């Protein structure tokens, strides 16, 4: 019996990892390009989930809801960076102040959602589909769709970062913003695009998170934030590839913990992994992420 529990935990782990990968890659991209630790990220996920919910509620299909969530997340993140975060940075707010700014924005956003929707639970109307057995693991078709979506998006992000001029420009901006600007890269536009892309990931993650948990409320995204931060740190903050790999590790480990110990200790185990890794490698497992620097204005 334990054997099948083991295999099934891996199955759940892959679903969690897929959601986590979407979320943590977006989170880590924002940090890489702007050096902003965006603690409003989880709340933006919730807001995007509500945007997807509005579409779903109006009779839209799940792909349409996903598109709505991604679009909302992209636009909201870009505007947030352009009209709130970046002005604060240019105004002279330092690293710590920026963390407080993002925390405050997150709290405001979360409580606007609470005020608008109340403390009740919501769920999308959709069918989880039939069950599919793969190598002893049982998935709903909706979970397979989440895994597939995540894999495709991860490949696209990798291709974008390594094979396109935009990706190169983004990595250059992340590594050294003033040098990038001096080399003729329009860093402002690149940063806007980076926030659009990471925001789209944030929105997608928000919608798939609530598809998987089936019921959500104004705090759902923020509850997921800690494990996103853990994945980003484990992968080396600012390193998207690291975040992807860390998501798989954390996804599988936390679902194992849920299967063999108790579901409430998922995050605790994830955190234990993080602390042990940080004790030995203070910059995360997967090499060097963004280096410490003041936030580029």
């Amino acid at each position: 019996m334990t054997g099948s529990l083991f295999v099934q935990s891996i199955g759940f782990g892959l679903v969690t990892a897929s959601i986590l990968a979407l979320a943590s890659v977006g989170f880590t991209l924002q940090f890489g390009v702007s050096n902003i630790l965006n603690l409003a990220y989880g709340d933006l996920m919730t807001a995007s989930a509500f945007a997807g919910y509005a579409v779903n509620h109006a009779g839209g299909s799940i792909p349409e809801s996903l598109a709505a969530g991604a679009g909302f997340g992209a636009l909201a993140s870009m505007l947030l960076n352009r009209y709130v975060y970046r002005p604060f940075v240019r105004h002279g707010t330092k690293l710590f102040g920026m963390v407080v700014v993002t925390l405050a924005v997150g709290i405001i956003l979360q409580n606007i959602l609470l005020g608008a929707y109340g403390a009740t639970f919501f769920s999308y109307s959709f069918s989880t589909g039939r069950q599919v057995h793969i190598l002893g693991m049982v998935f709903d078709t909706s979970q397979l769709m989440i895994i597939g979506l995540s894999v495709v998006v991860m490949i696209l992000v990798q291709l974008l970062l390594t094979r396109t001029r935009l990706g190169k420009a983004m990595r250059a901006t992340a590594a050294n913003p003033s040098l990038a600007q001096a080399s003729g890269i329009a860093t402002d536009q690149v940063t806007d695009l980076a926030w659009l892309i990471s925001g789209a990931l944030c929105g997608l993650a928000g919608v798939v998170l609530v598809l998987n948990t089936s019921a959500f409320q104004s705090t759902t995204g923020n509850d997921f934030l800690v494990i996103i931060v853990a994945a980003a740190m484990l992968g080396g903050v600012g390193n998207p590839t690291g975040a992807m790999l860390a998501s798989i590790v954390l996804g599988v480990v936390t679902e194992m913990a849920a299967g063999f110990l108790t579901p409430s200790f998922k995050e605790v185990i994830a955190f234990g992994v993080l602390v042990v890794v940080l004790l030995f490698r203070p910059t995360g497992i997967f090499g060097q992420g963004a280096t410490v620097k003041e936030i580029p204005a």
Partner: protein
Amino acid sequence: MSSAFSFYLTTLLVYLGVDILAVWSLNLQYGVAGIYNFAWIMFQAVGAYTAGVLTLGADTGNGGFQQYILGLRLPEPLPVLLAGVVAGALALVVGIVALRRLRTDYQAMVMLVISVIALLVVENVTGLFNGPAGLSLIPQPYGSLPLSTLGYQWFYVALTAATCLFVYLFVHRVTSSPLGRALRATRDNEDAAQALGKDVVRLRLFIFVMGGAIAGISGAVLILFIGAWSPGSWAYVETLVVLTAVIVGGTGNNFGVMLGALLVPVAFNEATRFIPPFGRPGLVDALQWIVIGGLALVFLWFWPRGIVPERRRRFPGGPLVAPAEMTDPSEVT
């Protein structure tokens, strides 16, 4: 003065005292030493729980409906002092993990994560501090004194004031001493402080433990007054309230942050008490959080140094530039 009003006033004064201890604690860590302690509320919670289990007696009491560790009934000032010791010890452990090797941005993230995880552990390990229900029915300290209910209220105000006074003497001693100067130097320019032979990690660890201990004492004073403490009291966003108080009052200024404690946690929490409930249930609470967040944003934008800014220290014989300007890291690098 009607007795209902005196009752309200004394309650408010105790809360103010607790919040003043809170802002001094966070101001030592963040304002003076520049440590990004996003887990601050956890240290207050640990102090509160410690004082709780050291006052409640064995957990078979009160019909045995609560489960918790230890369960002692220690004589009066001990639970508060031990709350400080335990919170300080926790700060030492957290500090050794977080402050010793990690970069400052990682520190901020680790603190945040620790705060959430601690809450999860306390909620799920019911045997620790009675899980999600929390501790309650904690007996009042010095309850055997022959005092009326109102008399006891004033007595507790005096106890809180005395605690604040002792803590202030300590805090003032630290911030006005060469130690405080060294701490501000590590905050303003870590590399320069290190080059001058300051052991940055030890200095930070010391102030982190001291701040943690004061946070623990503030939790103890609070729990012994209200008689209950549960996970609902220390979600990580509660740290934002104390942080906003520090920023509004004046980061790094002991008197400024006192003003912040009066304005942010006390004034804003009390203001909502007088708003008639409207809209859906919980809307007023949501608005309160929106206002706290907005306050943090407005002050960081318009008055980042707060209402009573940190005093610029000038040293005879030193350069004529104010230290804060001279050591602005953006100008050095």
